């Protein structure tokens, strides 16, 4: 039995279990921290400067060269991961077993597992129009259940406001964080995505998980349909066959624009169909991360 498809995962009652199931299918320790910190693995020497840790002075090097050198180490536990989840109403859409939000939570939970398992810090920010949950990044084992419980309680609602979310994230996120954004990016404003990507300029590492339902990608409707907005009062009665071609054109243009903007801003971009295997999504993401570090 394939445990990692959406139909199977949705039967697991909590994000915790889903995340564990996904993580079990993913190889651990695929990435290393790009930042130096406390570790036993020597990285390089640096000439002492006032303010450096005295305890890191390499006395052997002083004996040889008569100069103060400080040891620097490579360390795997010094990453601050911040998971950002868009819980707006549109994220609650589902045409198959799992909604976009449920997929986002599962992926986020799995990543939190991975981070904490490697002694990295994991934090959570949930936003729909404004930030409603803010769990700071911590690497302690006791922090993981807190994050997972918060994910488990998430319900879709509100509206998508990427601009405001980006502004609040800029305040919340410390520098050099890995910000993983899970959203459908359905914000009509032209500057919305740009503002979000500006987080990269603040020396953060940003990854965008763009979640879309298969029905949103293929528009498989035939009969006369009254489309209702999931975030506001908008509605439209339309014959889907008449506008299908135009819809798909619009959507492809949107996807191209998002993909292009992410590439331009040096932001990792993952288009996630809610009907694909989630371990594949994570492996793809992790493999790309590893490639970037080399």
């Amino acid at each position, binding site marked *: 039995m394939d445990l990692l498809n959406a139909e199977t995962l949705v039967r697991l009652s909590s994000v915790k279990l889903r995340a564990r199931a996904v993580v079990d299918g993913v190889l651990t320790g695929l990435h290393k921290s790009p930042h130096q910190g406390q570790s036993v693995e020597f990285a390089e020497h640096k000439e002492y400067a006032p303010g450096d840790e005295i305890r890191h002075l390499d006395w052997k090097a002083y004996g040889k060269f008569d100069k103060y050198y400080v040891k620097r180490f490579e360390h795997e536990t010094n990453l601050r991961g911040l998971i950002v989840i868009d819980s707006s*109403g*549109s*994220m*609650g*859409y589902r045409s198959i077993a799992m909604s*976009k939000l449920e997929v986002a939570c599962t992926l986020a939970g799995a990543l939190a597992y991975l981070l904490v398992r490697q002694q990295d810090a994991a934090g959570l920010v949930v936003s729909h129009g404004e930030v409603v949950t803010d769990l700071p990044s911590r690497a302690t084992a006791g922090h993981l259940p807190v994050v997972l419980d918060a994910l488990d309680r998430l319900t879709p609602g509100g509206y998508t406001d990427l601009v405001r979310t980006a502004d609040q994230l800029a305040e919340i996120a410390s520098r050099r964080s890995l910000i993983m954004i899970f959203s*459908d990016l*359905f914000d*009509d404003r032209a500057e919305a995505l740009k503002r979000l990507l500006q987080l990269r300029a603040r020396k953060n590492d940003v990854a965008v998980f763009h979640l*879309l*339902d298969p*029905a*949103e990608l293929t528009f498989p*409707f035939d*009969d*006369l*349909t*009254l*489309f*209702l*907005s*999931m975030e506001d009062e*908008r*509605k*439209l*009665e*339309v014959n889907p066959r*008449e*506008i299908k071609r*135009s*819809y798909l*054109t*619009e*959507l492809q243009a*949107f996807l191209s624009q998002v993909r292009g903007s992410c590439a331009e801003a040096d932001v990792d971009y993952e288009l996630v169909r809610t009907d694909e295997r989630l371990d594949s999504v994570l492996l793809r993401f992790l493999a790309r991360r590893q490639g970037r570090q080399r």
Partner: protein
Amino acid sequence: MTFANPWMLLGAFAALIPVLVHLFDRRRPRPHPFGAISFVLRSQRRTASRLKLKRLLLYTLRTLILLGLPIALARPQLVRDAQAATASRGAAATAIVLDASMSMQFADRERLFERGREQARQALADLLPDEPATLLLCNAEAQPPPVPDFNRGRLRAAIDGAKPSFGISEMSRCMNFAARALEDSPLPGKRLVVISDLAAHAFRLDLPPPTIQGPKGERIRPEVIVRDAANGAASLPNRAVVDLKIDPSPGGGPRAFQFTFTVRNFSEQPVKDLEAALKISDQVVAKGFLDIPAHGAAKKTLIHTFSSGGAYPGEVSISPDYLPADDRRAFVVHLPRQLQALVVNGEPSPIRYRDEAFFVDAALTAAGSPVQELIRDPESAFREPFDRYDLLFFLNVSAPPPDVARRVIEFVQRGGGLLISMGDRVEPEAYNKLLGAILPRGLRMVKTAVPTEASEPEASAAKIKEVAFDHVLFLPFSGKAREGLTSARFFKYMLLEPAQTSVGSAASSEVLATFDDGAPALAFARRGQGRVLLYTSTVDRDWTDLPLRTSFLPLIQRFGSFLSGSLEERDEAKARVGAMVPLTASAPQAISLVRSPSGAPVPLQKRDDGTAVVGPIAEPGLHQVFNTSGEPIPELSFAAGLEASESDLTRLKPEELSAYFGEETMRASVADAQPQHVPFWTWLIVGAAIAFFLEGVLLRK
């Protein structure tokens, strides 16, 4: 514009369907919360104007399809205005000749006569206001029409009330009548509008075309407009029962009749397995099939045996075609009732096989015999009133007393049948003296061919040598059956006086069989209304062994039928449509009324002697005759047939018409008139198909 199937136009209401669907469509859309509604809204905004145009186009195309199809099925034709063609020639007095012959009942979708009426109305409508007109319905009883006038209402009413006949129409004669009516109009222009199916038999092209006497006495040709009721059809295929002959069926018994009818195929195509049926009293009693070559004929014989006497109406028919009136032919068969015969046994015997009437009795009481007999010895027989009998059989009877002989003569004169057979008791002189007035020939003397007591008398006995086998009496005797007659041995027979050449009673006799020495074996004569057969030998074994032969039984039964007249050939279909039919009834059955097959009374002229003449007959089929009490007289009912030539619908060619009327006078000829009807329903079908295709293309977009 005209429509062949105008009722189809009702289907044009279907064009309202798109409007009604648009107005009353209450389909409820399925509500569906959707995350990417922004894209849906954007797409809808972008395509709104295009969709609006597409919907409008779809609506228009669907309406055109639903409107075009019923109109196309109504088969519209554009009628070109003929008035423009005629107006340029100035006002002309017009006579419209409408063919009302039976052939105009030809109906391929629509009856030709209905088209002809429509064309007559059109011709009337095409007239200029200052053109007077008259109308002639051309049938067998056509008379010169009135002088052209301006009473259009009367002409329209006459056209509306016109009906096709079952008779022939002579269009040439009718055109002459119409031309004569035009002579009386003061207008210088004269015009003949001829509306016909152009069946060739109606036009006498060997006669000069119709002319009109001009003001100076010269003959001028009127302008002729020929309107083809058949719309220029190349041919009008038709099959018809053109002849019917009813004969007694040889070998089928006294009440078996054979109905031989001829079917002609007046078309270019041969006909295979054409079903033919014989109906008696509304019951189909026999069926058959015919193969008829193109422009050929085929005969079919169907046989039916009637169970009893009486008048039987019936018809032979073939599968109906476009002209059903000539696909059947009615008849009435009159069968005599059971015949009553008084058999006078001249030599009764207590030993049955020696009795003179033994073999005759066996023959007349056999199954299927048309004769019911009463056998008496002469003394008691002569006391019987002869009026109660149809036939008298004198078997070896000595000459009757004079008063009885007178009664016998009266019996024959009034229509009775008499058979006289010879024997030892017959005295030639007494017979000649007392019954000579009715005998076919006088009796002379008995000839002994060979004495019966001679050894092997059969070897030198006389035989019948010549028999009139083509006579109705001997029709059943064919093939080996003839041997039964010709092999019989005759030891004695009565010689007859030679035929008299002078005009008299004996001159009308005929000999139907002779012995090998030329002496008559059977002589026949009509006397008054009756018949007499004289058989010159015996009906027992005294003079011949014929009674032992198989042919004796049918021969005696045929004698009975023949003497009563029931073997006569019957041509029941003598009455023709358009002809007069004489009827004769006995006094108690005075004729008062004759009804046609449709129930209409037929003109009847009664005469003082009880006879009547019916006609002219207007309809084919069974005509019933009623007496003064209103009861039908079955024996006088008769069937009328159609003129076979009217079934031949071979059409005149346009060039023949042009040559006949002259190119100058026949301006609006068949060729000119033909394009006046421009069918455009095919274009409508093509248009609807294109609209359908475009709708499909639009739907895919």
